[in-house]
């Protein structure tokens, strides 16, 4: 669809900040109440579409073994979500997916968790399903089996939540990615500087690359839920251009507003871009150690019985450390130990791109042959 102004993205999925805050608080609250009532937060959808919470027996068993698990705060949920959004970027990069797929998957993930808490639906699984659906929607079909193989997961994990996620997205699946708007601006800018020599063209290309990097960062914040993609792309260009000032962006924007007969004034556009940068800077910093702690908390409040097992494992771990053969150099993890299987605890293996690229070797060779055809670039100014 070419017309952003009539899209579901424009009408339903760009929120006022207060609405966003309220929604996130409401789902966090609901999960907290479930924890009090049922002793655990996880939710499953049943055959008739109703939601199933943990059975009483299980809850009582958990209660006998220990105190009610602690719930995640709204802020902790933000951290967890941001962590998994970063994972979506990693997975999509490793599969060499075009960045449109990545952006769509991240937006699906964000939209899904507007109405659900990570305590209710496991973000590790939801993230994979979001990538899977994004591939289907963008007509870049990858089977659940291929996707599962590439990340060493049972394809059923990917498939299990497909309908739940589609429903959570209210079946509104067309997403406008800022990357595309960025391509439109870059294309337009290149045309504009065509007469000014090769250096000018090269400057635009470099600026675009830098701006893609800025968009990558913005994708991990609230920005895509608060601003239209055209503004996000322009803010990324402006930010990328600030240091070297290789392109006269202000003049370009003036011209663009004039040419397109946009309803917005230059100062409105400027203040929107300022707001985007503020939101970008305010976004929480995700560091490994903090997320690992929250993730453990998350697992236990989803499934309190794990509390015991964790303790056991900790005890075992201590004993193990004393054994001499454990000093052996680390080896690549076996498939069953992959980071995604166990969440964040073993995720050290996931942080260096080389290591995880290695794991996907088979997948990569398969995808290398798939070429993206030169898409007709259309200038998309989406306010």
């Amino acid at each position, binding site marked *: 669809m070419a*017309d952003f102004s009539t899209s579901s993205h424009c009408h339903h999925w760009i929120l006022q900040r207060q609405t966003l805050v309220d929604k996130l608080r409401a789902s966090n609250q609901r999960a907290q109440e479930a924890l009090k009532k049922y002793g655990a937060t996880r939710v499953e959808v049943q055959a*008739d579409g109703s939601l199933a919470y943990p059975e009483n027996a299980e809850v009582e068993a958990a209660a006998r073994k220990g105190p009610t698990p602690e719930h995640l705060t709204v802020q902790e949920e933000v951290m967890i979500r941001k962590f998994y959004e970063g994972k979506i970027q990693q997975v999509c990069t490793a599969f060499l997916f075009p960045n449109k797929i990545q952006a769509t998957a991240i937006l699906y993930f964000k939209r899904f968790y507007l109405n659900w808490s990570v305590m209710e639906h496991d973000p590790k699984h939801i993230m994979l399903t979001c990538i899977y659906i994004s591939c289907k929607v963008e*007509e870049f079909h990858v089977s659940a089996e291929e996707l599962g193989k590439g990340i060493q997961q049972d394809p059923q994990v990917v498939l299990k939540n497909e309908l739940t996620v589609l429903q959570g997205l209210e079946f509104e699946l067309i997403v406008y990615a800022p990357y595309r708007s960025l391509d439109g601006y870059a294309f337009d800018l290149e045309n504009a500087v065509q007469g000014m020599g090769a250096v000018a063209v090269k400057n635009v290309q470099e600026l675009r690359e830098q701006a893609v990097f800025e968009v990558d960062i913005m994708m991990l914040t609230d920005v895509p839920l608060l601003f239209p993609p055209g503004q996000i792309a322009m803010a990324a260009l402006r930010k990328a251009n600030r240091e070297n000032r290789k392109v006269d962006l202000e003049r370009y924007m003036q011209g663009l507003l004039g040419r397109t007969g946009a309803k917005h004034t230059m100062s409105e556009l400027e203040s929107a871009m300022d707001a985007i940068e503020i939101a970008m800077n305010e976004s929480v910093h995700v560091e490994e150690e903090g997320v690992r702690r929250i993730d453990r908390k998350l697992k236990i409040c989803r499934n309190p019985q794990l509390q015991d097992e964790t303790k056991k494992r900790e005890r075992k771990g201590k004993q193990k450390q004393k054994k001499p053969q454990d000093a052996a150099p680390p080896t690549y993890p076996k498939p069953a130990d992959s980071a995604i299987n166990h969440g964040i605890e073993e995720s050290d293996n996931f942080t260096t791109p080389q290591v995880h690229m290695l794991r996907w070797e088979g997948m990569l060779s398969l995808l290398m042959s798939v070429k993206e055809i030169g898409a007709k670039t259309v200038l998309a100014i989406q306010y």
Partner: protein
Amino acid sequence: MVDPGNQRQRTRPAWLNQYELVGKIGEGTYGLVYLARSKLPHHRGVRIAIKKFKQSKEGDGVSPTAIREIMLLRECVHENIVKLVDVHINYGDMSLYLAFDYAEHDLYEIIRHHREKLSSPINQYTVKSLLWQILNGLNYLHSNWIIHRDLKPSNILVMGEGEEQGVVKIGDFGLARVHQAPLKPLCDNGVVVTIWYRAPELLLGAKHYTSAVDMWAVGCIFAELLTLKPLFQGIEDKNGPNPFQADQLEKIFKTLGHPTPDRWPTLLNLPFWQANRNFIQGKKYENPGLYSIVQQPAKSPAFDLLSKMLEYDPAKRISAAQALDHHYFRTEPLPGRNALVPGSPGEKAVGYPNRPVDYSTDFDGSTAPPQSNSNLAPLQQQQMQRNEHMMQVPQMHQQLHMQGMQRIPQNSNMGNYGVGNQQGRRKEPDSGNQNYSGYQLPNKSRRM
């Protein structure tokens, strides 16, 4: 004793209570289509067509067809595009149900009624109004970068009695695609468009195609509205994944004459043009006979528009926007919103038959009770449920029945004849009609 009714109730999704099932109106490879009435307070009694998509067989979740239809129709709002009212999920069998505004007619049935029952052409006003509305809907799609890719008479729905009577709705978006920025070439989707309405560039193996493929299909539909017969009835070659459709091309060449690189420069680049040089380029059809087939004077506006739609070169083929501007639509009779009213004041309106409904099918598609034990209770209960639905039927027919006859399709899937006959419905033999409904689902010749 366990009450099977209750048990059944529990595995049934709650949203089913929004609807009162009337019966089955279509069937295809990925599912079934039902007719139902809304029970929601503000829509009470409104008829809804519900298309059920089964899980794809390959163990790959929701079928791409369902995803396309949902994603596009969720965004499309246009008078001449079928309206997706709601989407429901049955977590029991992981299937999706798409609820559309119900359209009583489609061009397949309208054309057939004229050909087989009335033996008289469709009046000029109706043809022009139908065509204008098809183009209007298509122009909306094309300007939103959507190619339908499967236009054919059974996918062109026409609303029955009510506020929107005689309004065209383009339906079945299972093959439609956004082509603004494809991540993969469009040809990766396999062959599209039912062969009779397939554009020559597709038949010749074009890798990249445009919205012009839809315009070719509209041309074929236009001719069919005029003559009541499919324009190019080729025999489909079903060997292999993308076989060369020699017969279909020959039918086209016979009518329109041979395409030449002069008129269609990119013809030389098309794979099948090169590969089948002997066959295609061997025969020569010199005398194009389109105007005699459609029985229109060669200089009439109708013929002029038709020949512009059936232009070989897709780059030169008329676009939907241009077609809407054609002088055919500015000459009398002018097109109107209700295509089904009489052409001139003295004329009598044609009463088209209602869509045939199979009353024996349940929402889950079963025609027999789900329990395998020979307990009579569930059967009786089902029969009672069905009779409840049937109570609605005579009422509906009074409302909608103008003069046409009610029909039951010749369909081997029809079970439970007893129930149907009890209602005193006449059965009318109906030969060779497999394509009995505009809600029919795609046939096997399409590959995804």
